């Protein structure tokens, strides 16, 4: 299996070069913004790893990235592109909060699973809509998920301002748009006291292994990958392609919904404005960077978690808008996707080499 290791090594090298490439181009933007890229990147990369705070915050960010990323892996592998994780996170978060706040007296052993189930179901239904639209009416899933994001956001904002607003906000007259706190006995336990890192991390890691087993070791996973890789052949083999498209989107939505749940139960303990925090988009980047593999998505999520934390620190230290990280993420997507071309066409590299070094390589015929 040495060729396999070789392949993995090559992939890692290509990914690193993609990241470096993205950062180099990002540096140009930093220069344009009249700041020192060396200093900015210095803060961005040393920050997350310099102390306990940086490391734990990185992991706090990695949890929702990983959960969203796992959903992305499932949907992309099934041949359906899910841009709707933002909305699905919100659906999951609000569903979980609603259940948790309305059944405060239930013991944790019952309430906690119920809350997770509620969040996954809400996210799953929200994702499933896009899947259904595609399967039944051939509505392009990119368009529908983007629009469903907007709809979810508006419903979410309405709920946390109106029906589900914290009664205290009303009685104090402050009116901050957020729900009541969920009962304390279902807050996810802290892994390290005094930090924000919570047991949702372990949950997400377990789920990554589960998704891997599901996709590659079960017959249903086989079918979903078959639908993604060869829809015509899947239909020929008797697989109900439409049904698996809906299922894939529902599972992807469910995963994103769970990201919403852990943000509520592990970090904020309520639903509030800005809860999804762009995880729905960054999760796509993490999944792509993890080569659309559930286990590859784990380190990728940690990496992008670190980049998010680093960008915040950079903003504070050198006064660069943290939105810079969006630019870098966008560049990473571009670089990773085009590096796919490299991996699939080994001759492309040779061709470029020939272009660059021209006749030098020619005479000997490559011995």
């Amino acid at each position, binding site marked *: 299996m040495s*060729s396999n290791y070789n392949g993995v090594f090559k992939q890692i090298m290509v990914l690193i070069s993609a990241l470096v490439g993205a950062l180099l181009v990002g540096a140009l933007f930093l220069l344009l913004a009249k700041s020192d890229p060396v200093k900015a990147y210095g803060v961005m990369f040393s920050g997350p790893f310099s102390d306990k705070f940086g490391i734990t915050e990185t992991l706090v960010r990695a949890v929702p990235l990983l959960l969203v990323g796992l959903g992305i892996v499932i949907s992309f592998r099934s041949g359906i592109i899910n841009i709707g994780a933002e909305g699905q996170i919100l659906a999951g978060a609000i569903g979980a909060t609603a259940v948790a706040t309305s059944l405060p007296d239930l013991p944790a052993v019952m309430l906690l699973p119920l809350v997770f189930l509620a969040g996954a179901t809400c996210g799953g239904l929200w994702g499933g809509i896009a899947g259904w639209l595609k399967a039944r009416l051939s509505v392009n899933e990119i368009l529908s998920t983007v629009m469903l994001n907007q709809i979810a956001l508006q419903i979410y904002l309405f709920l946390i301002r109106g029906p589900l607003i914290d009664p205290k906000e009303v009685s104090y007259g402050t009116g901050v748009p957020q729900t009541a706190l969920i009962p304390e006995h279902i807050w996810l336990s802290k892994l390290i006291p005094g930090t924000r890192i919570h047991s949702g991390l372990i949950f997400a890691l377990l789920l990554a292994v589960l998704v891997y087993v599901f996709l590659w*070791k*079960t*017959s*249903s996973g*086989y*079918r979903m*990958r*078959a639908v993604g*890789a*060869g829809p*015509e*052949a*899947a*239909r*020929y*083999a*008797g*697989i*109900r392609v439409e049904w698996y498209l809906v299922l894939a989107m529902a599972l992807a939505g469910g995963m994103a919904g769970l990201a919403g749940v852990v943000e509520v139960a592990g970090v904020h303990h309520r639903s509030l404005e800005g809860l999804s925090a762009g995880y729905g988009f960054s999760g796509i980047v993490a999944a792509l960077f993890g080569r659309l593999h559930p286990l590859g998505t784990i380190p990728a999520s940690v990496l992008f978690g670190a980049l998010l934390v680093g960008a915040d620190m950079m903003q504070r230290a050198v006064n660069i808008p943290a939105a810079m990280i969006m630019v870098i993420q966008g560049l990473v997507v571009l670089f990773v996707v085009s590096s796919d071309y490299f991996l699939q066409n080994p*001759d492309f590299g*040779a*061709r470029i080499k*020939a*272009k660059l070094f021209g*006749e030098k390589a*020619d*005479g000997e*015929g*490559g*011995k």
Partner: protein
Amino acid sequence: MGEKIEHLEMRGITKRFPGVLSNNKVNIQLKTGEVLAILGENGAGKTTLMNILYGLYQPDAGKILLNGKSVRINSPSEAIELGIGMVHQHFMLVPTLTVCENVILGLSKNFFMDLKTAAKRIKEITDTYGLAINPDAYVWQLSVGEQQRVEIVKALYRGANLLILDEPTAVLTPQEANDLIQLLKNMSEKGNSIILISHKLNEVMAVSDRVTVLRDGEVCADVNTRETSQEELARLMVGRDMAPCRREGAFSPGKPVLELQDVFARGDKGTDALAGVSLRIREGEILGIAGVSGNGQKELAEVIAGLRKTSRGKIVLNGKESTQMSPSRIIEQGLGYIPEDRIHVGTIPSFSIWENLILKDHHQPPFTKHFLLQNRTIMSHSSSQVEKYGIKTPTLETPTGRLSGGNIQRVVLAREITRKPVALVAAYPTRGLDIGATEYLHSKLLEARSNGIGVLLISEDLEELTNVCDRIAVLYEGRIMKVIPVEEADERILGLLMAGIAEEAQVQA
């Protein structure tokens, strides 16, 4: 555009892919006005060699000499600049554009295209070579043979004087194939050089001046066509004598396994592609469907497999009506199906060999228990299949997309026959297969027949049909013209029926 190619040489070309040596120190030569045929079994490395010449791949070693000068061809556009054109087996045309627009696509340096001048030049080219083609026709309106001619015009328009054709006749009707051969002769007489890859030895004999035979990536013979024969070429290719497979054993069909009663179905264009087809296939019989493709063959196969809806009529499979059944129910009911498009329908190119071998049974024991794929069972099943069906592959994990055409077909065949179907539909199963693989496939179909499977064999190759079928039905414009026992079928009668002439054939028969 470069100077005219008077002489081409590929010297010591070696190309390695993970686990396979696709070309090993291959030498070929070609003079102006010459037609060189490249022969070889599936996977011998023919396409790889041509892709290298066309700049799609870089050789690991060796060089290409044009008119004695060493050149490096980094991309198809550089190949075109040097005067090398290639017609791929899968056409690269835009269906919604006209012929003229397709020909100049990607050429125009200006924003506005000068369609008038282009049309005039296309006319000149078509007149010179006697290529009948209307520059204003839309590509989607054209038959496969005409589309191929557009590809050729495209290459000529770009100034190609060395033309590579990779299995050009595999998808053509016999008539179209004859026309193409004529055209190639014409072009070589006018001073163009041609490299032709084909598995059909009669074509090679008819048109080529020289033949280079590849075996396992190496040149094993280089002969003048005049000094050789079909038999010798076959022997050189396969390394042993070939004898065509024939039916033997008494014809004693059992009960019907597949029946179609007055079946109607619409084609992709919305018209009736099947207009009242009735057929009956019995256990242990091979029923051939002859006819020019495009007369409802594709729809016939799809309707039986449940992949296309019937608009009227009834299908009975293994004693149960299957007209409304889902594809998976039909598979359970005992239908095997070797589809026409084996690459994208018969297999999933990015899936490994073992994954493709369980495509239809992945959800059942012994391959799946309690939702979990049983790796060990699957692997031992797959490796025995690979061995039994002679699938040439480095590993079981190799994606089928990396296999050569003949080996992909073996994967499909292995899967479909091992499932022990009651009825087997095979659509153009030997298209693009080398003679060895064709013989092998025929022997497998005959084996299926003697095991009591009812086979429906759709083909355009009359020799194939008369060799292996018990009865032959001729399909014309969605209707069965006639079903005749093979003893009464000769090429002339079949030809008449295929052209839609029933009465005369009736009188003669």
